[in-house]
């Protein structure tokens, strides 16, 4: 890993907040709880330390909408740490980073090339800006039934067929830890005069660990959304948007300000600052330990029998160009159990909460805060679930990738006149809303896509197995809005 240009032991927002606290400034500004005094119950719950720095933007603490002092310095430090030209602190989750990234490059009618297994936030951005998705079908692993990365040849073909597209969008990695050949895709995009955008919601650690897949900035991508709050240890909802040299910093800031709050939380911003410092100073060792723990857990789980905890053996040079070893995903279908069933049993019977379960797999998220003794619990619980719940796997569906049939742009479909119909009557109609299991939040149906028999079967099965389905206006997903 290259050295840093700036002194990464600094944390300017954190330091400014500490100074501010010591000055005991009398608050005649918002927030109205006034360092917690006005809301003693909240203060008891969250602690004085926490509510005491829940303050408003002011000169000594800078302003996220127009950073000129400590936030600006914190962004420079983050850019240096991540090897980016510029970094933006984000307080609306990685969703806001992804949307700003898309809104910064696409406008009404522009085409954008992307894999279909993107997070909903990407297609949401297309609803907002009216861009047209050009989907590259991801490769699928038949055995474990997960969507993989994009094959180079398919990306090349999409670029050739859509020479006017403005950008290529890449997951780096997918939720399961699968990486496409990002360097090659960046080169193809740039040669065609397109930008390359990366969703690194699950890839913060790529910037700091060793022997991990290449990060978007190192691969030459133009923008990336990084969920610092996932593997990086900052507070939920805090993120970074990173930018390379080919994009205009001031314009991105304007785009961010279209939708971002003007009262950014200093709890979130200081957590980004402190976490960035931690990763820059200690990330290498931290992620080495996380990788060791994940590898150990994979070995132990694979010894139980029936489970398949997959890892780097999936690498095939193309659609699995690289694999993120910190992701602990386990295929459960051979035991006759859907991933979502194992997910529910782990929580209900064993008090173990994992990240998600889908039809064929579970994913346990390992990070900076995990301990080996907790992994032993997870492995032992999986051994017990096998002993107590194993059944005949005949008739179990796996998570097959369903190729979308895009009829209208997401924006056109979302804003068109629509009617709510019972699910079984929607066959052949054009869907006007999203349907997805959350997590992982990858749409089964997006606005503008045709409802097929295969999709209806999938929705029925996923509901039956206990997946939390979200998206439609009908919370029970008995009805679906379709375009009239």
């Amino acid at each position, binding site marked *: 890993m290259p050295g840093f240009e700036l002194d990464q032991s600094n944390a300017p927002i954190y330091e400014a907040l500490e100074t501010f606290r010591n000055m005991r400034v009398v608050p005649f500004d918002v927030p109205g709880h006034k360092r917690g005094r006005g809301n003693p119950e909240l203060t008891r719950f969250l602690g004085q330390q926490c509510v005491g720095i829940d303050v408003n933007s002011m000169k000594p603490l800078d302003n996220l909408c127009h950073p000129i002092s400590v936030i600006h310095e914190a962004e420079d430090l983050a850019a240096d740490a991540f090897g980016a030209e510029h970094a933006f602190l984000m307080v609306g989750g990685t969703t806001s980073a992804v949307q700003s990234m898309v809104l910064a490059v696409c406008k009404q009618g522009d085409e954008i090339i992307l894999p279909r297994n993107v997070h909903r936030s990407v297609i949401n951005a297309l609803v907002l800006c009216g861009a047209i998705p050009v989907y590259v079908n991801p490769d699928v692993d038949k055995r474990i039934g997960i969507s993989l990365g994009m094959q180079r040849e398919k990306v090349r073909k999409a670029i050739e067929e859509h020479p006017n597209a403005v950008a290529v969008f890449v997951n780096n990695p997918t939720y399961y830890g699968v990486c496409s050949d990002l360097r090659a895709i960046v080169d193809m995009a740039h040669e065609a005069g397109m930008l390359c955008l990366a969703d690194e919601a699950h890839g913060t650690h790529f910037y700091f660990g060793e022997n991990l897949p290449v990060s978007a900035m190192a691969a030459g991508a133009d923008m990336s959304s990084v969920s610092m709050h996932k593997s990086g240890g900052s507070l939920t909802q805090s993120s970074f948007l990173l930018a390379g040299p080919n994009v205009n910093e001031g314009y991105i800031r304007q785009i961010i300000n279209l939708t971002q709050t003007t009262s950014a939380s200093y709890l979130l911003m200081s957590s980004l600052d402190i976490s960035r410092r931690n990763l820059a100073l200690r990330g290498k060792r931290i992620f080495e330990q996380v990788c060791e723990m994940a590898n150990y857990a994979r070995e132990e789980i694979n010894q139980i029998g029936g489970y398949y905890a997959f890892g780097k053996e999936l690498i095939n040079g193309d659609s699995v160009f690289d694999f993120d070893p910190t992701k602990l995903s386990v295929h459960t279908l051979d035991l006759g159990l859907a991933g979502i069933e194992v997910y529910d049993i782990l929580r209900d019977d*064993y008090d173990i909460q994992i990240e998600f379960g889908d039809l064929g797999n579970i994913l346990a998220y390992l990070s900076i805060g995990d301990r080996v003794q907790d992994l032993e619990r997870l492995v032992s*619980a999986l051994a017990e679930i096998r002993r107590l719940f194993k059944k005949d796997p005949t008739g179990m569906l796996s998570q097959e990738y369903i190729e979308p049939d895009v009829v209208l742009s997401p924006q056109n479909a979302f804003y068109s006149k629509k009617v709510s119909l019972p699910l079984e009557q929607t066959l052949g109609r054009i869907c006007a809303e999203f349907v997805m299991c959350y997590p992982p939040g990858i749409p089964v149906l997006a606005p503008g896509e045709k409802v097929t028999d295969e999709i209806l079967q999938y929705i029925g099965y996923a509901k039956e197995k206990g997946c939390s389905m979200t998206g439609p206006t009908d919370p029970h997903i008995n009805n679906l809005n379709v375009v009239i």
Partner: protein
Amino acid sequence: MDLWFSEMHTPDVKLSLRVDKQLYSQKSDYQSIDVLETPEFGRVLVLDGNIMLTERDEFIYDEMITHVPMAVHPKIENVLVIGIGDGGVVKELTRYDQIQSIDLVEMDEMVAEACRQYLPENASKLDDKRVHINYGNALKYIRKFENKYDLIIVDSNDPFGPSEGLFTKEFYGNCYKALKEDGIMVNQQGSPFYQEDAVAMQRSHKRIASTFPICRVYQAHIPTYAAGYWLFGFASKKYHPVDDVDSKRWASLNLKTRYYTSRLHVGAFYLPAFLEEMLEEVE
């Protein structure tokens, strides 16, 4: 100098012992370990600020956790002990000639070392040729075995520290699997008196009751533990702890004890009403 050690039993209740000398104080990878010399209780092993055992009252714990299952199951040969302490439990077990093998699993080797050095009286029995010591995580150790042990003794810390994993459903389930078809698991089950302890006790009882067909609780008076009132769990695949106790067989072994008696064995399973209610709530 007036030197006192205090253990907080709740945020509002503490037990204090006068200390003559602090003999040992180290931090291991898992916990802080202290050995104190006290006038009333002799040497005291303290882990993370909690008293684990004292020379004066540990016989109560060691006897109750071993002789109860030994008097019930007629043919215990293979035993697993989780948690080494000072070797007091192993010492009681080695008094039975019928036992052929005692496997010991201890997470923290530094505890064993500290005890060998400062509480050597019981530790000598750890060198008995039937005893096999394994250092490592008990959850990991046990999930590899099936149908192996007649008796598993879980001599753990309290459930709020590094021993948390030994109070879980996955641990009890793996113990069930590692036991033979007539096997017994005995565990220390904490105290039912103070609120936080009581909730933890109920949680572990619920988990054991959902794993083993027979699951009873018995009690003992141990002065240095919270409220001086301690519980053990008796979980079994076949034998009932009171209906199947064979006092004659046990008496014929002529083991001299200071706390355990055959009459106390039965009496220990008669519980106060409030405790019966708490247990029934989760059964």
